[in-house]
């Protein structure tokens, strides 16, 4: 059985028709090398809830399929030639195959979930996929717009990024037929915050802040996209100033436009302070979730609380 890079065997080529040329190679490339964080998140949530193994696997596979489908489409939409240090699927195979492979993963998600028989889970998953696509669409609509506000970007990230985190927190409960509205409201809010923090931490990598994974510097900016940190430092600046800022060819020039490296560091600290507020809010939401958990399930909150260390601060908790 083909193994992916994660403990849960998310991808098995036997799940896909062998008569489709290049499909298995494409998925091999796609699923290898990925960190599988969302599948791990499913595992973290499922274990305190004592979710059956098969259900845990189904959920992990579902979220990774959705996430990787969006990556296949994303790379083509953004014309990104590399993914995880390797040629993106649309360059190595073809744009047509990349689109179809993404669509096929989403179709498999629906097949697998409908076989599971939990209609609410199917509905919720379909809503999340819909949100994800809306987020992608809206993000594409603001490419090249360097004057977009942080508030508007948050709306896009809520759909595009946070939706999958929300799903990871809520889907295990839905799979267990646990539908308490206030619980799901708190999980939804916690997922939103987690997704926002993850996105903001990822956006900081673009400016070489806590960039241990070696992400390309100013990659977003050069792709015509002002990310959340870019929008944050642009607040209150004139259009001329923003224009000069976004045309920076390297990080030093970017920092100089903001008043030098000391001023840049101050802005990073200010951004961190804002996000500390989000982290505090996230912890408050987890407190509310805890009220709905049985004593044996309360480990869930202990497991979820330190995630902000990893997702925003990019350090192991």
């Amino acid at each position, binding site marked *: 059985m083909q193994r992916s890079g994660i403990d849960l065997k998310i991808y098995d080529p036997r799940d896909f028709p062998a008569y489709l040329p290049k499909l298995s190679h494409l998925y091999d490339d796609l699923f290898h090398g990925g960190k599988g964080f969302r599948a791990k998140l499913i595992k973290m949530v499922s274990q305190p809830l004592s979710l059956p193994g098969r259900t845990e696997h189904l959920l992990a596979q579902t979220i990774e399929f959705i996430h990787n489908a969006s990556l296949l489409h994303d790379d083509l939409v953004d014309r990104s030639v590399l993914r995880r240090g390797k040629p993106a699927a649309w360059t190595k195979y073809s744009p047509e195959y990349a689109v179809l492979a993404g669509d096929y993963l989403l179709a498999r998600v629906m097949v697998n979930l409908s076989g599971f028989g939990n209609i609410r889970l199917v509905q919720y998953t379909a809503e999340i996929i819909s949100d994800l696509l809306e987020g992608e669409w809206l993000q594409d609509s603001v490419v090249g*717009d360097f004057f977009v*506000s942080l508030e508007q970007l948050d709306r896009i990230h809520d759909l595009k990024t946070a939706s999958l985190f929300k799903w990871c927190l809520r889907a295990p409960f839905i799979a267990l037929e646990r539908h308490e509205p206030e619980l799901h409201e708190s999980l939804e809010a916690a997922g939103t915050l987690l997704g926002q923090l993850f996105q903001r931490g990822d956006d900081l990598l673009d400016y070489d802040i806590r960039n241990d994974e070696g992400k390309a510097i100013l990659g977003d900016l050069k792709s015509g996209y002002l990310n959340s940190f870019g929008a944050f430092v642009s607040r209150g600046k004139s259009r001329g100033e923003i224009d000069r800022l976004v045309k920076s060819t390297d990080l030093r020039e970017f920092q100089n436009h903001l008043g030098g490296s000391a001023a840049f560091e101050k802005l990073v600290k200010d951004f961190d302070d804002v996000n500390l507020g989000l982290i505090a809010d996230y912890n408050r939401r987890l407190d509310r979730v805890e009220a709905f958990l049985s004593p044996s399930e309360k480990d869930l909150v202990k497991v979820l609380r330190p995630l902000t260390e990893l997702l925003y601060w990019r350090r192991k908790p």
Partner: protein
Amino acid sequence: MTSSSAIVVKAPLWPVIWLKALRPRSFLTVLFPIYLILVPAAGFGEILDPVLTLLATLAVLLAYAGLLLRNDYQDHLSGFDKLHPDRGSRAIQNGWLKPETVGRAGLFCLILAIVLALPLVWVLPLLLWILLPAMLILGFLFLTPRSHKNFPAGELALAVLGGPLLMGGYEVAVTGYLSWEALLAGAVWGALFLFPVHLRHFEHLFVESQAKVPSLVSFFGFDRSQKLIQRWWVLTLLAFCLLQFWWQARLLTWGFLFLLALASFPFLKSWARLKSPLGSEVKNLRTQGQTLYLLLCLIWALDVLWTSL
């Protein structure tokens, strides 16, 4: 989303609080039609009775104040005010006034407006023909928790209320008669004051669509609303020009209208090029559109003043 340190907004003095709650700038919606009727009536010596005019003016202002306060109260109850953190008077949201206080104040203003209108109806029974449909529309729009925002045609009903019904009713109260001119001018005014409303809905299209707020703009969606707003402005401007043609406006007015039409071109062109409901240009263009709206109001106001002097 909350910050780690709470931001405390110091409460101003109570007269200032109530002034903020009443949002004086929004009174243009009723002050302008009052002006359009009162100034010519005064200029041509057509005011029937100054006391009736005063009662009518106070009744209109109190009714509008009441509707504004009730609207804020209902927005808070329905959660609509959370959709737009920068809208409304913020008097409830900042904790300066309790929602029930605002709701009761709104009701008090509305009742007082009705009381002031009673002698008007007694003296001028013709007013009943206008007040009855107005009160029906008001009740229909404002009796439900989400107010006029609950109905797809809610804003069109508001335009009828604030346009021909208001101008027609006020004309009857001031002059004792009802003219076609007032009703037509009211129709144009109703269309005109909806223009900034559409712009506001367009700026918040994404949020309002997600919250299923049934405005014309969210009904039409991004692409068709782009065209709706362009056409709305052009048609309103044309309707106003037709009115001016009928009233045989002065050359100076035509000159200003021509300049305004020229100034509209960059706005319409930029509006057609909008690519995203979340893009940065939307807010800028909304400001431009509002400026055009205010300029048209100014041209109209000056024309009425010159004609009446």
